[in-house]
């Protein structure tokens, strides 16, 4: 990018002949960034350090940051205290299922909105944007009743199945991306006798890789961290996902915060990895669309 803001910066860029960013100014900015970075990392650090403390250390004041006695065995205990392995399996099934559902259905619907001409398309698109405005709390109870009538309570179905019907926000996101693609390839394919299905699979999907990766990453993070859904639909501990299961470590039979934190660390790791791995796409999309993450 050729433009860069100098407004509010200590001094202007060197090449333009303005006073250069002084060494002192640079050192100050680094110091500031490191200080702020430390504040932002502190909760993660606290989580990891607490998870490695022995029980006697948990109630000290002032607290120690660095454990006096390292107790990595906390990470072994948590599997027996709660059915944590099952929580992680449930979370994985939920998140992976929801990612597949979201990506497949939202991509198809977005393709329809971007490329197919059908009666009522514009009206439907406005309805789609309208549903984005509606707070989920309005639909919450009828949806709950619906799933209850279907006998789906206490299973992952109410969480996963709706994702196979598309998510309005992602449909919008993918549609915007598809509209930015040139139509020449499709026109050539039509001349070669390709149908819509072939165009979709052979041309649109490969070209849309960046946005598909972004949507997959967004929805993985959202569903892995989802708290409200599992909270209302899941009852039996063996069905819980990690995000709600974490709370079962509190007070059952007693609260050992180092165990709670060990479980929290393990719960956080997958999303951090997914984020790091897809960051390039992720950051771009958030910045350009105001995506949720």
């Amino acid at each position, binding site marked *: 990018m050729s433009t860069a803001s100098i407004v509010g910066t200590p001094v202007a860029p060197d090449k333009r002949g303005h006073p250069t960013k002084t060494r002192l100014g640079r050192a100050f900015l680094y110091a500031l960034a490191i200080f702020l970075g430390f504040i*932002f990392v502190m909760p*993660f650090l606290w989580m990891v350090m607490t998870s490695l403390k022995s029980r006697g250390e948990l109630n000290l004041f002032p*607290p120690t940051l660095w454990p006096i006695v390292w107790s990595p065995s906390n990470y072994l205990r948590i599997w027996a205290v709660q059915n944590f392995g099952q929580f992680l399996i449930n979370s994985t099934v939920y998140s992976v299922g929801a990612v597949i559902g979201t990506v497949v259905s939202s991509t*198809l619907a977005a393709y329809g909105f971007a490329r197919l001409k059908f009666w009522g398309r514009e009206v*439907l698109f406005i309805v789609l944007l309208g549903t984005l405005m509606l707070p989920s709390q309005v639909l919450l109870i*009828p949806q709950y009743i619906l799933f209850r009538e279907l006998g789906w309570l206490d299973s992952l179905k109410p969480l996963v199945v709706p994702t196979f019907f598309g998510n309005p926000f992602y449909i919008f996101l993918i549609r915007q991306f598809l509209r930015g693609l040139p139509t020449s390839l499709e026109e050539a394919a039509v001349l070669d006798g390709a149908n819509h299905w072939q165009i979709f699979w052979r041309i649109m999907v490969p070209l849309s890789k960046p946005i598909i990766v972004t949507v997959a990453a967004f929805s993985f993070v959202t569903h892995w961290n989802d708290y409200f859904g599992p909270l209302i639909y899941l009852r039996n501990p063996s069905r819980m996902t*990690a995000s709600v299961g974490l*709370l079962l470590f509190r007070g059952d039979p007693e609260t050992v915060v180092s165990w709670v934190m060990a479980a*929290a660390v393990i719960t956080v790791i997958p999303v951090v990895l997914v984020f790091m791995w897809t960051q390039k796409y992720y950051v771009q999309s958030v910045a350009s669309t105001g995506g949720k993450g």
Partner: protein
Amino acid sequence: MPWLIGLIVFTLGPFIASLYLSFTDWRILGAPKWIGFDNYERILTADPLFRKTLANTVYYAIFHVIGVNVVALALAQLLNQKLRGFVLFRTLFYLPTVTSGVATALVFSLMFNGNTGIINAVLRIFGIKGPNWLFSETWTMPALITISIWDLGVPMLIYLAALQNVPVELGEAALIDGANRWQRFRSVLLPLISPTIFFNVMVSVIGSFKVFTLAKVITEGGPANSTLFYVLYLYRQAFESLRMGYATALGWILFLIIFALSALQIYASRRWVYYESGDNV
């Protein structure tokens, strides 16, 4: 188009059902009983908890929106200095946003613990005796607001993108005219990114009216309902008191509040948001 079926089954159907339910008395067992506007009337005139939760939510919203936007903009401005290695800090500042809200809430409840938490340990270094944050009617809300500001990755990236689009020449021109740093920030930069500020403020206002996890996990609305937020109250009415009709009416009032606030902001934005070409958002 599976989305269309989904729209009908999971959105349109529930939408109509929800409107109907909000006019009924229904405790999940038996059939909903039509009671007209009774739910709405009771919520608006005879429910002290409704007023309490609304006041709590507004309190939270005001400070959360200001805090998140000021800090996110400041961090974006810092990242925009384009020093080597700052990409790493961008990742760092964004990480809280992908972190599970429950894990976040759990670790912060340890850090804010009045007896063993690090916050009070740090305050003690400066000779301040910290309050018992999470058990004080006065201090719990400020603690929750502080925690909520940690999650600012999305607005930060949006501000950063906006700052990167500000033309260098404008700042230089102001510099030549003798504007100091604050004047350049206040008179050149802020107007140029005002559409972005507007967008982020809108999103964070809506977000703060839906705040739930923090209070549910850390305080359960306490102490003495001082952090009982609107959606937490709705959740309790629905899934603890099983008053489905009443909870649905609460949902519709929330929708109307958000709708009215958005309309108000769009109206107010005409006074302060500057669009370069006059028509793009």
